[in-house]
């Protein structure tokens, strides 16, 4: 009896042993691993798709917080012209405006982590795509296009980083395991720009000559050319910039949005409310079901707007211009009229409830609301912002071209014509493009260039372009406290910003994150900032 039993047990034990060869293997079913990746065209596409909604673009377009805008709002605050109403909690905004980031490196450093991490994450994905997609067997055109898109995004991310941090670690090899050298030193700015230029030239060469909207909302030749123009301008290479700016201006697929009327159907209201306009060269898509625009719509008001909408419960003016900034406009400029780029009073059409900006004792408004962020659908019914965020529009191409031509060849009719197109659209006194072109041609080169700069302040007040211009020109726009439309330019370093603080050379860059310096011993800190906790 017992023998039989023991034999049975031993046998069954052995059976269990022998049947378990693969028992400890890992075969995940709900995620792929690297060995099965970069095998198909679909994977290649999905990989490049990742870049559309991560990294540098989100630094402009991501309204993830009710209390603070995307990172791109912060450099604007360095000018002192813009502030966040909630800066008591969002201290990095306050330190930016008061130019006291250096003494508060730790607080600011936590803020820039988001930029650094997001951009390098995208760069690594782009590096992976650029390295691996060539080995996938797929349609050659599609393959080249995807690689060119990846290069566009790699350049976009590096460009953003170099503007924020100056010299940065530069790497083109994807990281896949821990054996690779991760301790990279900061590369010279010129080397970073060199890679950016190369990548973007490829992108311009390869990508389709279509509008963004007609190219399945994927990066086009003109989006790449716009970015490359910005890059060259940032580098002061106005001659190269001219080439690419003119490529966009002459694309034939992009043009300025026209004013249908001078009120709710003005070009500016269309840009605010309508997607896929010809003017839009590159945008971040938003919709109400898959990826909404987060809190964008709430940035259009101040906190008191909670009382007039039932769709959002928090409103903050996270990037509010000061009244002095609004003096950049002459009073007859269309863009400064109520409900163009800005507004001071608003009535909810559903309920009749009204909002108004707070007033001073003399009855004037203390500040303006940001109408450009107003999203009617989101605020009045869905609670989901769905308007796309425009990164580049044709107006910028015109202003780029106008300035670059002037910088290299003086005030030509062509340059004047481009600037005039932008000015004429905002003109409420009936002047035609030709009239204005003529006027502009009488300007001295320097005056014309300054006119271009001023026009940028007027055309993109809420699109975060100003600080890039300050950096590349080395000039700070002194907007008159009293005279509307009057702007003068002084040297950036040494200028007094609108919050009364003096701009130091160390204010031009942001600190490298203190945490990242711990992780990478080869990193050095930017001048003026603390390098240790």
């Amino acid at each position: 009896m017992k023998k039989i039993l023991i034999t049975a047990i031993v046998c069954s034990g052995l059976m269990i042993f022998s049947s378990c060869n693969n028992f400890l293997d890992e075969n995940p079913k709900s995620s792929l691993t690297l060995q099965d990746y970069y095998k198909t065209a679909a994977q290649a596409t999905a990989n490049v798709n990742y870049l559309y909604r991560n990294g540098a673009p989100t630094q402009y377009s991501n309204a993830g917080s009710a209390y603070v805008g995307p990172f791109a709002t912060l450099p604007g605050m360095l000018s002192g012209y813009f502030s966040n109403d909630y800066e008591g909690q969002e201290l990095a905004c306050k330190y930016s405006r008061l130019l006291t980031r250096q003494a508060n490196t730790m607080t600011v450093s936590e803020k820039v982590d988001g930029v650094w991490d997001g951009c390098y994450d995208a760069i690594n994905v782009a590096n992976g795509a650029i390295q691996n997609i060539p080995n996938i067997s797929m349609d050659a055109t599609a393959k080249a296009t995807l690689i060119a898109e990846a290069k566009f995004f790699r350049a976009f991310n590096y460009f953003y980083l170099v503007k924020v941090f100056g010299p940065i670690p530069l790497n083109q090899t994807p990281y896949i395991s821990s054996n690779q050298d991760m301790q990279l030193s900061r590369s010279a700015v010129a080397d970073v720009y060199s890679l950016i230029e190369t990548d973007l030239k490829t992108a311009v060469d390869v990508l389709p000559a279509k509008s963004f909207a007609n190219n399945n909302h994927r990066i086009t030749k003109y989006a790449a050319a716009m970015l490359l123009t910005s890059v060259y301008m940032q580098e002061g290479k106005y001659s190269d910039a001219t080439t690419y700016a003119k490529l966009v201006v002459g694309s034939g697929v992009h043009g300025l949005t026209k004013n249908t009327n001078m009120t709710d159907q003005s070009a500016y209201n269309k840009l605010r409310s309508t997607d896929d306009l010809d003017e839009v060269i590159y945008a971040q898509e938003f919709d109400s079901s898959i990826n909404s625009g987060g809190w964008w719509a709430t940035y259009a008001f101040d906190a008191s707007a909670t009382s007039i909408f039932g769709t959002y419960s928090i409103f903050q003016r996270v990037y509010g211009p000061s009244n002095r900034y609004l003096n950049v406009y002459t009073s007859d400029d269309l863009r400064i009229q109520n409900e163009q780029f800005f507004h001071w009073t608003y009535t909810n059409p559903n309920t009749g409830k009204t909002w108004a900006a707070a007033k001073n004792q003399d009855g004037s408004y203390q500040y303006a609301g940001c109408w450009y962020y107003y999203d009617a659908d989101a605020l009045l019914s869905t609670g989901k912002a769905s308007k796309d965020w425009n990164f580049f529009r044709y107006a910028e191409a015109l202003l780029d071209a106008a300035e670059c031509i002037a910088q290299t060849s003086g005030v030509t009719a062509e340059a004047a014509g481009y600037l005039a197109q932008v000015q004429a659209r905002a003109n409420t006194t009936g002047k035609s493009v030709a009239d204005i072109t003529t006027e502009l041609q009488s300007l001295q080169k320097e005056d014309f260039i300054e006119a271009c700069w001023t026009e940028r302040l007027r055309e993109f007040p809420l699109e975060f372009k100003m600080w890039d211009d300050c950096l590349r020109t080395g000039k700070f726009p002194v907007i008159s406290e009293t005279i509307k439309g009057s702007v003068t330019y002084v040297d950036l370093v040494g200028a007094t910003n609108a919050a009364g603080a003096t701009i130091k050379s160390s204010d031009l860059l942001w600190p490298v994150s203190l945490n990242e310096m711990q992780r990478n011993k080869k990193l050095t800190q930017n001048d003026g900032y603390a390098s240790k906790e």
Partner: protein
Amino acid sequence: MKKEEPKLLKIMKITLFLLSTCVFSIFAAPVTSQNARVNLNSGNGMTIGKFIDQVEKQTNYLFVYSKNDVDPGERINVKSGNKSVAQYLDEAFDGTKVKYVFENDYIVLTKKSALTTAQNLAKKIFVKVVDQSGEPVIGASVAIKGSKEGGITDTGGNCYIYVNPGAVLQVSFIGYVTKEIVVGNVTSYKVVMSEDNKMLNEVVVVGYGTMRKSDVTGSISVAKGEDMVKAQNFSALDNLRGKASGVSIFSNSGQPGAYASRVVIRGLATINSSSNPLYVVDGVVMEDFSLVNPNDIESMEVLKDASATAIYGARGANGVIMVTTKRGLKDAEGTRISYQGSLSISNIARHMKVLNAEEWCDAFMKGLQNENTYQGKSWSLNRTDWFTDTDYFDSKGYPIYNTNWQDEATRTAFSHNHQINIQQAGKTSSMGAFLNYTDQEGIMQNTWSKRLSAKMAYDANPTKWLSTAINLMINHTWGRYTPETGGGQDARRTMIEMLPWLPLYDKNGDYTTSTSPTVMSKTFGFEGMSNPVMILNLQKRMNYNTQLFGNAAFTFHLMQGLDLKTQMGIDYHSKQYRGYSSVNLNNISMPNGWADYANTNVLYWQEETYLTYDKYFGENHLNAMAGLSWQERRQNYDESYTEGFSDDFYEDNNMGVGTTPSSPSSSWSRWAMNSYFLRFAYTYKDRYSATVTGRVDGSSKFGENNKYAFFPSAGLAWIISQENFMKNISAISTLKLHTSYGLTGNSEINPYQSLANVSAGTYLLNAKRSAYSYVSSLANPDLKWEKTAQWDLGINLGLFQNRLNFDVSYYNKKTTNLLLDCPVPHSTGFTSIFKNIGSVRNQGMDIMVNAIPLRTKDFTWNSTLNLNYNKNKILHLGENDEDIELNGWVGGSESILRVGENMSSFYGYRRYGVWTKEDYQAGKCELNQVGRAHRSTTKEIIGKGMPDWTGSWINTLSYKNFDLTVDMQFVWGVETMQQFYHPTYDRFGITNGLKSILHDSYDGTNPKAMEQMIYLCNNGHAGQDTTVDSRWVCDGSYLRCNMLQLGYTFDHSLMQKFGVSGLRLYASANNLFLICSSKFQGFDPESTSQGDNKFGQNMTFYSYPRARTFTFGVNLTF
């Protein structure tokens, strides 16, 4: 001549001295003689008291008596004269209820046997209890087996008891082996008790079997089910709190059933792996142990050191909790049916002190004034310019309503618990069936948890060579809860922050929200919020958990001492979460609402087969075990979520109507382990023990190159009190030294972490959902086991027949190869790689002191002190010992892992005070900085959330039929971070705030104030600077009266008339009081808003308020 005291008194004296507690006083007494003559002057007025007085004056005898037995005022008859003490005593007490006994130099007075309850069938028998040297054993319990009835031996070791013939008497006394006698025809019995040779026969559960406690070389603490279930908590983990030394239990939630308590044994020793102990229930590993029915638990054994835990190898590093559940009757044939029921009433134990309506307005006005003075504003200081909403304010600007939102959101909660045990045993089999229904209401409206559980155990010995055991448990728990994690506008937050001058409903009968005061919200811009009652009513979050757990085992008795056991166990969980949030909930789910379903299915199985050999060879005792194990766990998860409801009709019952569904999600994972283990325990002469264990574990989770790892341990024990040279030291009953060293592992990471994973999903591209994917983790084929080397040194000391016991152990645990999300430079595109790098040390002491300071016939006091001291230190992290920052919130990271520091460190700025007028005058700050926080510019470590000391002091007192339990619990050397200071101080104006805003903040006259001047946070106002700083942190130590319970057990004889063999009634209070820092302003310093994040202990944004609970219960045995 050495004066001998009665044994009992000697025990008491030393015990009490050691406990520093004074109950008795011992008189100094000179030498006396047995036949001392006494001359008393009586008269007829002599009382017992006077008599004692005079005898004590004239002799050196001292009287000892209990006032319950002897009334000193009672009159006695004695005649004056010169007589011997004995003569006088006979005279005095003859014919009274008092009898006397000489005991050395003491005269002990007791009540004559009081067993007057006539028992028709029972006969009176006499039992004399002596020890091996013939000395009477005083205070021994003589009980009728199977009942609560019995007696206690007097100072002569004597006891009378009424019993039925054939009954079995159990004679027991601490430190002696329990004896049983069967009552026959004789009426007098002498019982010779032998000293229990240092717990030689006590058995403890260890991994894969049991061992004699004396042979154990490791550190194990034991908690009994009946002690644990006293508190009637929903979760067994809450019941375990304070019952086992070295086990720290953080009951962070007062909400029933929704959030499990955190259990930490001997400190945190891991970063990215789990810190939970391994739960082994009847030999089978169980997850989600917190949901198990605590009434089914017979006992819990906590294995702490390597000698005990290494047999669980890779899963043992956090300690192992061995749970034994109830089964059929063990010691007798027959049937026992019992019922335990309780009814509880709970209320909020402590309120947060927030501004009332009028104070809110006062504080607001004060803020305006401050801004005019320091911020260059010129606000109107006329109330009527501000408080303009006539729905809520009168014409003078004073509030009409004053709502206490904490009262509105909470309730008096009623709970009940019912347990039926049916236990039976026959000759070759036994069976236990257990049913439980628990319905527990939370004190916040609409939160509750219910449990229906059934368990069945069947054990049989069908043949001589085979035993079988089956255990099956089905457990269904379901409930509704409100979230306790994160920083959103949930009810636990708005019950504090909601404006106090708003009523519950507006004039239209709708719930108020922060936008209800339409007229004012334009100027004030209140933070969007819904009132807490509205949230609790309109947001439903439901959990449904079903668990099937069981095992079947065959034990083959191959030969004497050699058994082969094979056991298959399963643990199946089906967990469903269903949620719906209303379209009307301001700042939560307005305007779209949401509905959410998530299902998780887990199937775990294990098959373990092992041989055990247990044999005595003369003075050698060998206990050996070897076995193999396979375990596998599979998990499926799926979730559907939609928004876009037009109203609340469908709730979550028709998700198809939601217009904006998210894409569905699902996942699958599996891990498996294959292990081989052995244990060899050898004891010589019951004095010297050695245990060696080894386990080889293979896990699918690790890199190709490191699947298997070996975990050895060795332990030694020496029972010194068994040595001949100790025999004469009668005070020391037990003295055991034990030490062990060994390796355990931690493999509790998610599977697939050694691989380079590709994350994939969809998002918006070209106006439709498009796929995206990217490589989201760095591969590490060398990923291997986290290892903990632990050295343990312990001592068990039992004094005075083990009436005073010390169980103390020191441990030093060093964890290396930490499974760490090791930071890499983020310029790689990754933030971390999963690597074995880093090291943590935990050192400390587990201390248990158990004492019976008092034990008389009627009165017993048992006292247990449990203490754990733990020091945690990070030794090494990452390549460069980089800081790892965690818990990012206002002001960035609020926790940090830094080499040299405790793992639970809080991270923030230091608050020096506020900038004062004087600072401004001295040019140290701008005018508009006056009243703002003066902080350091860099962050530092500002506290820690895990205590140095945790402990409990549990006292059980019984007097006659009454019993009283006083259960105190404390932590010391810990801080708590009051994250709610951020809104309740720094965002005042758009929310409500703490009362102290009005009284403690800087106002220009109190330069030492720590609290910022009131600057309003409303639209257009100056606002406050807010960031994480040391002001948020206060001492988190506390002393809690965990439970106070008074019970009454009815006499067996009385109850028999009703066909009941046992009945106990009790009333108890849980969380009766809490003593903590006066700077703590929340509900309970032990709480967290970080969920099960192991670095979030005592970081609380807002917590669910803790309840004070009163319970009435009955335990009935048929």
